[in-house]
């Protein structure tokens, strides 16, 4: 956990006062909607189909139990009793009233939560591996650097009006759980041959209507130079990114149009000039240490890997199914990382009620040193659970419907809010997800299929990251009807790829059938039971799937 100090607290309180004044001026008519729009967006407030939507940042996916309880309070007091966890470690509330927003922000600021820059053409919430600090084999905790970037990008006077939004993601593990290759800047922390900590810097990844996988712009930037290098990228983008067409304004288009070599050279020239005249952004060890010192780590005990409680519970098939699915190894022996599926059968992906949030906060206090994580797959995690507590935790999670053993399986669907909430959407996402969770509700079937990520977006803006789903579903509108394009073979990890269209778009009513046919084709085509869906597509290409799925259509 990162603990705010007096300076951090002062800044977010000043932000709340500023926004209170802006809302007051809007309500009195002193600010036009055009003037106010960007100001509210920079505080996470969208105008959606039915009401204002409020997006709150959960930087690098780390929450304390106190903070989660406060999110529950906001859901209850200002919304309709639930919240929606997004693919970028944010939580959204869908029914907020503008006049009450300053109070909601003040309530959140009390516990060190903000909504700064969760929208608008600025640097967005910095995301990271939800297992940061606890994943076995991790090189260092990437949240230290995430926090440095969070601070550096917050209210940046030069980069608050960029051509378009700008997203950072950071990982420090070989297996990328932060999807860094589909971010504007992706950072992979590693140690070079001299043992120095630094970053491979990727740039120009992104989804939306023109998907690109990020390219390496610099293979190694020393940690002390991270902020100045980032500033050089942002400065080049701010000046030369396109502003004539909103759909061509992301940095990925600039990188694509210039080519990565030319873009890299522009950044290098800018960076060298910056370094020659100015060292203000260079981080010294003491500064990094100061940030590190405000992250607290649990006092782990020496505990057995196979305690009696676990041996006893192994006779319960339901517990075992959950343990095998939702419990991951921890860097400290005797502990585990537990994922809490927010994908119950028939439920909207990523939603949690205020009561569930409160209950998870209590369980975190009891079993996870008061800490909770939020992942881009729209699930929660308890990062420090003693293995002896797993049976008790499972019972408690089952009671609040958060023990569905479907993590990483076909029903662990990522979906945007879609036409049910969003004013941009062309088609519904949530009901498609709900139908699929019903079709594949049988746990044994889902297990037989194995790891398979389905991603659903209700429009080309791709908030459900359909391009990088093993199966991607994109809602489009055809003559006033909802149709869905289906891609296969995408992935968002260290081998990120954009999926390939499998055939013509299908109407709403046929989507679940097509997905079932794709899965059947996979089961028939896979070389052996442990060849994952995405590997079969890689090995065979799309054609054999197309033949089987579209033969009778």
């Amino acid at each position, binding site marked *: 956990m990162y603990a705010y*100090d007096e*300076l*951090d607290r*002062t*800044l977010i309180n*000043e932000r709340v*006062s*500023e926004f209170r004044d*802006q809302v007051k001026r809007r309500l009195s008519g*002193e600010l036009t909607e055009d*003037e106010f729009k*960007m*100001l509210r967006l920079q505080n996470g407030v969208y105008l959606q189909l039915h009401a204002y939507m409020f997006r709150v940042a959960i930087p690098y996916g780390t929450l304390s139990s106190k903070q989660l309880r406060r999110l529950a309070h906001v859901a209850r007091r200002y919304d309709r009793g639930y919240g929606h966890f997004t693919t970028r470690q944010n939580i959204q509330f869908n029914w907020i009233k503008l006049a009450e927003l300053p109070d909601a922000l003040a309530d959140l600021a009390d516990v060190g939560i903000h909504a700064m820059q969760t929208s608008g*053409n600025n640097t967005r919430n910095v995301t990271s591996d939800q297992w940061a600090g606890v994943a076995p084999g991790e090189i260092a905790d990437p949240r230290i650097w995430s926090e440095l970037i969070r*601070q*550096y*990008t*917050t*209210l*940046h*006077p*030069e*980069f*608050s*009006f*960029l051509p378009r939004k700008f997203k950072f993601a950071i990982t420090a593990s070989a297996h990328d759980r932060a999807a860094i290759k589909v971010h504007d800047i992706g950072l992979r922390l590693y140690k070079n041959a001299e043992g120095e900590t630094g970053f491979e810097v990727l740039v120009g990844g992104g989804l939306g209507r023109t998907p690109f996988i990020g390219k390496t712009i610099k293979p190694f930037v020393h940690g002390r130079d991270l902020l100045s290098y980032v500033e050089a990228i942002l*400065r080049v983008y*701010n*000046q030369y990114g396109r*502003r004539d067409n909103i759909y061509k304004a992301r940095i990925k288009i600039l990188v694509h149009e210039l080519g990565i070599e030319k873009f890299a050279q522009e950044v290098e020239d800018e960076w060298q*000039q*910056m370094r020659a*005249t*100015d060292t*203000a*952004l260079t*981080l010294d060890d*003491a*500064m990094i240490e*100061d940030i590190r010192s405000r992250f607290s780590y649990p006092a782990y005990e020496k505990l057995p890997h196979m305690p009696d409680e676990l041996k006893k519970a192994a006779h319960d098939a339901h517990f075992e199914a959950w343990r095998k699915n939702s419990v991951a190894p921890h860097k400290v022996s005797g502990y585990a990382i537990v994922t809490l599926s927010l994908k119950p059968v028939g439920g909207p992906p990523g939603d949690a009620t205020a009561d569930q949030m409160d209950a998870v906060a209590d369980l975190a206090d009891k079993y996870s040193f008061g800490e909770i994580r939020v992942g881009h797959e729209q699930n929660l995690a308890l990062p420090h659970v003693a293995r002896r507590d797993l049976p008790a935790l499972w019972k408690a999670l089952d009671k609040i419907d958060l023990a569905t053993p479907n993590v990483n399986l076909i029903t662990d669907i990522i979906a945007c809010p879609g036409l049910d909430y969003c004013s941009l959407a062309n088609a519904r996402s949530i009901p498609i997800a709900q139908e699929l969770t019903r079709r594949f509700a049988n746990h044994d079937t889902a297990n037989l299929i194995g790891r398979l990520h389905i991603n659903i977006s209700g429009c080309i803006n791709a908030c459900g990251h359909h391009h990088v789903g093993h199966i991607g579903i994109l809602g489009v509108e055809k003559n006033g009807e909802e149709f869905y394009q289906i891609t296969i073979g995408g992935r968002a990890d260290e081998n990120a790829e954009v999926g390939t269209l499998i055939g013509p778009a299908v109407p709403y009513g046929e989507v679940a059938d097509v997905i079932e046919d794709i899965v059947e084709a996979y089961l028939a085509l896979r070389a052996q039971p442990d060849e994952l869906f995405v590997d079969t597509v890689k090995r065979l290409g799309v054609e054999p799937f197309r033949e089987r799925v579209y033969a009778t259509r």
Partner: protein
Amino acid sequence: MPLVKNGKISRDALVHVADDAPIPDGGAILISAARFLEDPEALSRRAGGTGVIWPNNRDVDDLVPYLDRLAVVALVFPTFRDGRAYSQARLLKERYNYRGELRATGQVLRDQFLFMLRAGFDAFEVKKDSDAEAFANTVKRYSVFYQPTGDGRMTALHRRMMLRHSESASQ
């Protein structure tokens, strides 16, 4: 349109000269970049002082040879959502050590005053009277800053270092 300079509403001493109007012999003038670049040597040496309106899609490098002779550089925000002039401002002030007046023009609104100030602007052609009157209070909204710019405000990281230093010194 009120001009805010050094934090106060001030009279604009510059005469805006249109591209097709004759350049007066005396007095301070503000002209377009195109007009200025027709004869930059002479225009930058005018006795009354010359200011240039520099568009936000043109490299400020072209202006560098004349910077120490210019009274004013006016950068442009065609809308407040177009942030290119923030980068130009920092480059002029921090990299090229421009010491004359740096003026924000275009859609200059209250809620961007502090960003502009931090980027190096010291004069503001403000759109609305009410915003100009609120200038002094608005720029006091924040007392904590997370990133260094040329404005000299100390960053949170540096303040923490000083704090740690004084803590350890007093022990």
